[in-house]
């Protein structure tokens, strides 16, 4: 238990250290307004990392999130063009994202196909569908209505709606993971599938649920992304699935399943988000960005490996001690 607390504490300390380091050269970066902007920028990563977390907890991986986001985002923009009201668009993107997640989950659950293969396939299929829908054309800012673009940027209590949505998703996951049977099932299935079966948990059904959650969040983020950046095209969020997995990995979600926490995933996403936002401010050329985030991932996982090498980690240890 202490190990868990310390993992997140260390990551939080690393983030604070990073901020302090940046502040020595550019005090403006840690101004509240700018930190709010960085948090808003990182919101899609936080939301998707939480969805990916539950998938990884069940020993699966979802490589199709970025393609799902791009497809739903494009559909949201097209529906907007057809004059569909915003609430209906929001409902549709969440439902569509969930359906795409369900397709992944179906193959994993009913046909026992490894998730990496399924989502590798659906990733190319979903992104290809955007091309079929649009013929490769872009939807630009002037083709979107003001209401459509304004919603994620609308400021409430100093933070844009987009950031508030991330906060709400984090709170929702905290409840889901700590307080619901499904949340416990994610850990049980990933920790020991055989044992989970004998305690009456359906492994496949739980994995299916994880994919649906991940898909629904990707669908919703698709709208947020397109509305905020006011552009939709085939390659939007290209390669973002790896950022999402990387955020989980930095946050200490065990890729073998069964171990991880909401706080870890959020901190992992924030760490990556701050690195990416800080680089241009500090005056490092954007060409350094990939190498730096790659190194950050490697250092984080090497560190994780060292701290977890000592003994086995099980999330339900906390429950064990309490009992």
């Amino acid at each position, binding site marked *: 238990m202490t190990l868990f607390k310390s993992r997140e504490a260390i990551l939080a300390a690393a983030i604070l250290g990073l901020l302090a380091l940046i502040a020595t050269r550019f005090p403006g970066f840690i101004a509240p307004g700018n930190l709010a902007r960085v948090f808003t920028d990182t919101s899609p990563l936080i939301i998707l990392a939480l969805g990916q977390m539950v998938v990884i907890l069940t020993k699966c991986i979802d490589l199709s999130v970025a393609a799902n986001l791009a497809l739903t985002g494009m559909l949201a923009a097209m529906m907007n063009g057809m004059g569909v009201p915003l609430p209906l668009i929001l409902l549709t993107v969440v439902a569509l994202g969930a359906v795409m997640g369900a397709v992944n989950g179906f193959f994993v659950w009913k046909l026992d196909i490894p998730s990496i293969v399924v989502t590798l396939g659906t990733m190319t299929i979903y992104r290809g569908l955007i*091309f*079929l829908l649009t013929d*490769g054309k872009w939807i630009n800012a002037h083709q979107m209505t003001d209401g459509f673009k304004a919603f994620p940027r609308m400021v409430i209590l100093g933070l844009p709606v987009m950031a508030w949505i991330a906060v709400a998703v984090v709170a929702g996951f905290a409840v889901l993971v700590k307080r619901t049977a499904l949340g416990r099932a994610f850990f049980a299935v990933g920790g020991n*599938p055989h044992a989970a079966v004998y305690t*009456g948990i*359906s492994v496949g059904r739980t994995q299916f649920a994880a994919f649906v959650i991940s898909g629904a969040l990707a669908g919703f983020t698709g709208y947020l992304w397109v509305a905020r950046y006011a552009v939709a095209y085939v390659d939007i969020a290209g390669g973002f699935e790896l950022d999402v997995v*990387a955020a989980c990995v930095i946050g200490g979600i065990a*890729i073998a399943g069964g171990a991880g926490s909401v706080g870890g995933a959020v901190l992992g996403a924030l760490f990556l988000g701050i690195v990416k936002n800080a680089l241009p401010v500090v005056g490092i050329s954007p060409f350094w960005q*990939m190498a730096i985030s*790659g190194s950050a991932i490697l250092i984080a996982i090497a560190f994780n490996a060292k701290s977890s090498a000592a003994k086995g980690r099980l999330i339900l240890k906390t429950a064990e001690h309490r009992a």
Partner: protein
Amino acid sequence: MTSPTPRHIPDRLTSPLSRALKSWEALLCVTALAIFIANALASPYFLDPWNLSDASFNFTEKALIAFAMAMLIIAGEIDLSVASIIALASTIMGLAMSMGAPVPVLVLLGIGTGLAAGAFNGLLVTRFNLPSIVVTIGTMSLFRGISYIILGDGAYTGYPAGLAWFGQGYVWWVFSVELVLFALMAAVFYILLHRTNFGRAVFAIGNNATAARFSGIRVDRVRFTLFLLTGGMSGLAAVCLTSRLGSTRPSIATGWELEVVTMVVLGGVSILGGSGSIPGVVIAALVMGLVTFGLGLLNVPGIVMSIILGVLLIAVIALPRLWARARRA
């Protein structure tokens, strides 16, 4: 909750897939033949021998990596950084070229960079005992990132004419150098995986690494060698690709890691490790090459091809399972 049928996650050896694997190569062969005939019927230009030879460029470079990747996946590991290794190796070649290095040096540097990158992956995985999928997601950004640092938004062009032989040359009548390299490497990897102790060790590790260790196999050494091999083959692919394109950009070979993994899985290699064969990968490479080439002749855009490959990947894996289920019912 109704009592669930026990699902034994790690116990994939008795899955319908592995039972179908015996005829997997046969199934793939039929698929390849069907696509070949469909192509021939669809376009009168398809059967032209020059065309067929050029069609090989659609898969040879990826297949070179897929042979090594197949062994890595059979051993229960994966390398997602292969495309980034290509970018790095090509960039190093370009850097050396801009300093006036001769062609043999360029080739050695390309392959050497690949080996070094593979060794780096292998060291991280074996020394820290980390999951390779995580390590190579990191090195994937790192390797390509170094290319971006060196190149920025620029490019290396103007490679010496001698280098062009690898990607554009022909030996004998119409066989491209790459096609010959493909056949040669297929034979080498076939022998390595199916006819040597090393190959047996790879299967043993993929099925049960702990048991392999207790039976005297130096598990980490084999793993390290496999990463080295995959890196080296990526370097070789970088030489071919750089030669064929005649230029280096940091975005070179983007997304190839997924195509290589698709090729390996399509070839019947279990993504969970422990089973697979080189002939399967060879036929899968031919299938993928034929599909992209045939669709190219029909002017189907690249992204639609990738949809078809995605559907093919899932269908080829799902159909035997559905069939097995239908027979049981």
